[in-house]
């Protein structure tokens, strides 16, 4: 019964899909009842706090915890010594959650305590004596690549070169993507523009700090409650770090107060488990905002060169990019995805993108909404914009002329399936925003963006209750309303009203493994699995109906929420609704459930075009966003209100990245703006309404045509805003954020 790409029809009338239905978690969230990471308590619970390095790079010579242990109320103090050996694939995570020999960045955890009160824990933290030998540090990506830079990891030799080097460096890996003869392509061009761009690190900025409640017993069993994008991932990593059986640890995902990629790994969870193990008491650990900024995943800061050739008619002849991303103190920045996504919007005969994964004395970067792609798109789309200006061409026309389309070869290799880039460009061109008049000091920016979108491992269980209502268990934490979307797809398939289905996020003991909520995969993959589980249940419901009627099962069909004889030959039988069959489930063979366990395939890639108008104040350098419109392909918008929400939210995060947000490090390598006052994310008064235009080019890999929508919306804004500001200011901007001092500098005012 599982969906077969190409065999199901995408052209159908929907009853529930596409409707703006209420969300199942809505009431809890407007009444304060919803329980997030920090909202859970347990009998005998202790408070855990973490001691963090004040140094950007320092050898840890000795840690003396004796005085902390003596504080009344303290039940456990741990250091890296409390974590035993672990498999290679989680070594970096172990090192990141608790520094071993060296502290690698300001904020790196070095010890932790658990006590009966936060006050006692705080007092104990102060009494832990760490003997540091401060080492030279480096935080800038270009500085870190220099041969003279302090070497952070002496065992790191650059991978991906023709010959592995004999000396260690801060460059972990080199990546190259592309096809065709780039040099020849550039030579053919009427105009070649080359620019270098720099972007600062930004933080995902979820409003809910990381929080968890761990309870480990002496019987080897554990329970963990935490806010995460993937509780199965948490179970896998934590059980590996603590040397326990995966199934002995049950992880329950709390409501999650935003993630954006930042909660796709673990930080405090293994620490809380280790404290609980040592104290034999439940332990709650909640990060402060300063800890979130200093020690949980920001993005990479980057330095990018882009060279593009264009002919007078707007044809792009070749594209070439070199991308350098520092991803903090450990290898694994998002540079490969940046390099793959950089030119993905363009159908180029010759394209090359080279990426360098660089380490520096900063927190280990974590995924942030289309990881790596916004910076790459910023650089590429800025050069495309400049070419259009120089050649006096319309930026949308040039993009339409060169746009990737169905079957064209992607800059990262494979050929595209059915894609919606052109549709978003055409929608932008037809929109009144594009024709609106601009005033003095105002500019209009255009940019496109791409993201891959994933499928991945997914397990869903659909249980029919005796009254015919449905419990739907999924294993992908709901960040932005996915329970509503997934439930609606199951309702559509079963032919029942949406409010007869209750969709919940089940714990790790209740379902098979689920990949994390990432890669814009949930509505696609958990939705696909829910559709398949519904079809599985329908098969069983039809069997029961066939039994009740005494006819063969292939003479029964499911339509509008009821089993019906498939033809007059099957005899005359009144339809049996889901509720009718459910009421007889026990007598006809037992409970009825549908299941689906898949590695979901066929996620459709996603494209967007953004239009933005800004005004630059030449006196202060302040940039005001006047108007913003997002055009993005959703394939099929299952719940349009939440699709719009993804478009608007991504655009505004991009506005923050473009204009305000940055990690500011002092000469001492310490983060100087570890709070929401100085790390300033956009607030309501900074913004206009964000118009969201949903374009629908169905994804052939999903029965309803669904594409992921979560990430692509953050890819174009950096470039769109930079292009707009460059137009308004009359000078090409090449650094982010475009904070007032940077704009004034570009204008030659300071």
């Amino acid at each position, binding site marked *: 019964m599982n969906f077969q790409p190409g065999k199901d029809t995408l052209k159908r009338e929907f009853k529930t899909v596409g409707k703006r239905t209420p969300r199942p978690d809505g009431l809890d969230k407007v009444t304060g009842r919803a329980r997030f990471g920090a909202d859970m308590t347990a009998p005998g619970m202790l408070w855990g706090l973490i001691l963090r390095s004040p140094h950007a790079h320092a050898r840890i010579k000795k840690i003396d915890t004796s005085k902390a242990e003596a504080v009344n109320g303290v039940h456990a103090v741990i250091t890296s010594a409390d974590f035993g050996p672990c498999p290679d*694939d989680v070594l970096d995570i172990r090192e990141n959650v608790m520094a071993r020999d060296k502290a690698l960045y300001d904020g790196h955890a070095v010890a932790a305590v658990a006590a009966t009160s936060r006050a006692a824990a705080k007092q104990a933290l102060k009494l832990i004596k760490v003997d540091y030998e401060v080492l030279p540090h480096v935080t800038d990506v270009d500085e870190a690549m220099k041969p003279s830079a302090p070497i952070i990891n002496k065992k790191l030799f650059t*991978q*991906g*070169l*023709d010959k592995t080097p004999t000396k260690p460096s801060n460059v972990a*890996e*080199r*990546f*190259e*993507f592309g096809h065709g003869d780039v040099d020849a392509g550039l030579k053919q061009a009427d105009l070649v523009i080359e620019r270098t761009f720099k972007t600062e690190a930004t933080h*995902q900025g979820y409003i809910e700090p990381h929080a968890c409640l761990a309870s480990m017993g002496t019987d080897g069993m554990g329970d963990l409650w935490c806010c995460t994008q993937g509780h199965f991932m948490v179970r896998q990593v934590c059980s590996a770090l603590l040397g326990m059986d995966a199934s002995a640890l049950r992880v329950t995902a709390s409501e999650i107060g935003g993630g*954006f*990629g*930042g909660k*796709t790994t673990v930080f405090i969870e293994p620490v809380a488990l280790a404290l609980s193990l040592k104290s034999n008491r439940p332990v709650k650990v909640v990060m402060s905002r300063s800890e979130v900024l200093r020690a949980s995943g920001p993005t990479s800061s980057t330095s990018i060169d882009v060279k593009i050739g264009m002919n007078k008619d707007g044809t792009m002849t070749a594209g070439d990019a070199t991308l350098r991303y520092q991803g903090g103190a450990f290898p694994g920045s*998002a540079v*490969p*995805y940046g*390099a*793959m996504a950089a030119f993905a919007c363009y159908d180029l005969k010759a394209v090359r993108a080279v*990426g360098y994964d660089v380490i520096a004395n900063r927190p280990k970067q974590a*995924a*942030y*909404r*289309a*990881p790596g792609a916004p910076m790459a798109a910023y650089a590429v789309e800025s050069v495309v914009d400049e070419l259009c200006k120089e050649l006096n061409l319309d930026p949308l026309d040039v993009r339409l002329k060169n746009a990737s389309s169905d079957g064209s070869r992607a800059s*990262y*290799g*494979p*050929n*595209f*399936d059915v894609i919606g880039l052109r549709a978003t460009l055409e929608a932008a061109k037809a929109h009144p925003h594009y024709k609106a008049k601009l005033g003095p000091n105002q500019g209009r920016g255009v940019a496109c963006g791409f*993201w*891959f*979108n*994933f*499928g*991945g*491992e997914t397990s869903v269980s659909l249980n029919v209750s005796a009254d015919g209502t449905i419990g739907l268990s999924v294993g992908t934490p709901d960040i932005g309303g996915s329970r509503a979307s997934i439930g609606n797809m199951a309702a559509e398939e079963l032919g029942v009203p949406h409010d007869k289905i209750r969709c919940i996020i089940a714990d790790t003991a209740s379902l098979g493994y689920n*990949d994390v909520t*990432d*890669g*814009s*995969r949930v509505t696609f993959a958990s939705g696909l699995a829910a559709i398949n589980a519904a079809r599985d249940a329908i098969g069983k419901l039809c069997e029961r109906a066939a039994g009740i009627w005494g006819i063969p099962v292939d003479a029964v069909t499911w339509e509008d929420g009821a089993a019906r004889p498939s033809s007059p030959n099957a005899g005359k039988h009144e339809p049996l609704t889901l509720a009718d069959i459910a009421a007889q489930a026990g007598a006809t063979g037992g409970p009825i459930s549908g299941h689906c366990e898949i*590695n979901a*395939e*066929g*996620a459709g890639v996603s494209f967007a075009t953004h239009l933005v108008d800004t005004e630059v104040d030449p006196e202060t350098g302040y940039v005001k966003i006047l108007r913003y419109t997002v055009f993005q392909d959703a394939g099929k918008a299952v719940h349009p209100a939440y699709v719009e929400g993804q478009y608007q939210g991504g655009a505004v995060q991009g506005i923050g990245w473009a204009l305000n947000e940055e990690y500011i490090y002092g000469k001492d390598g310490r983060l100087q703006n570890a709070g929401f006052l100085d790390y300033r994310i956009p607030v309501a008064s900074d913004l206009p309404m964000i118009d969201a235009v949903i374009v629908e080019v169905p994804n052939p*890999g999903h029965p309803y045509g669904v594409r992921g929508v*979560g*990430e692509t919306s953050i890819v174009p804004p950096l470039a769109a805003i930079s292009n707009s500001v460059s137009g308004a200011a009359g000078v090409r901007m090449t650094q982010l954020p475009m904070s007032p001092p940077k704009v004034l500098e570009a204008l030659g005012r300071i």
Partner: protein
Amino acid sequence: MVKVQVWGSLKPALEGADEIELEAASIREVLDQLSENYPAMKQAIMRGVSVSVDGRMYANAVMVPLQPDSEVFVLPKLVGG
């Protein structure tokens, strides 16, 4: 023969070849042969790769059947946000 291209940091592991042709009926068979024939690729494949088959991306699935003329790209393992 299945056409296989290897990209990203794995590219040098192919020792200069842009594209290789293999007899393989699934992604698993492609990866097994790459590991066997190109020692430098073995570790990378063990760490995880994503594979595109005829334009469709597979994050970690290996049982995907290939057609005799399938076009396969071996890419860095994808993550999302």
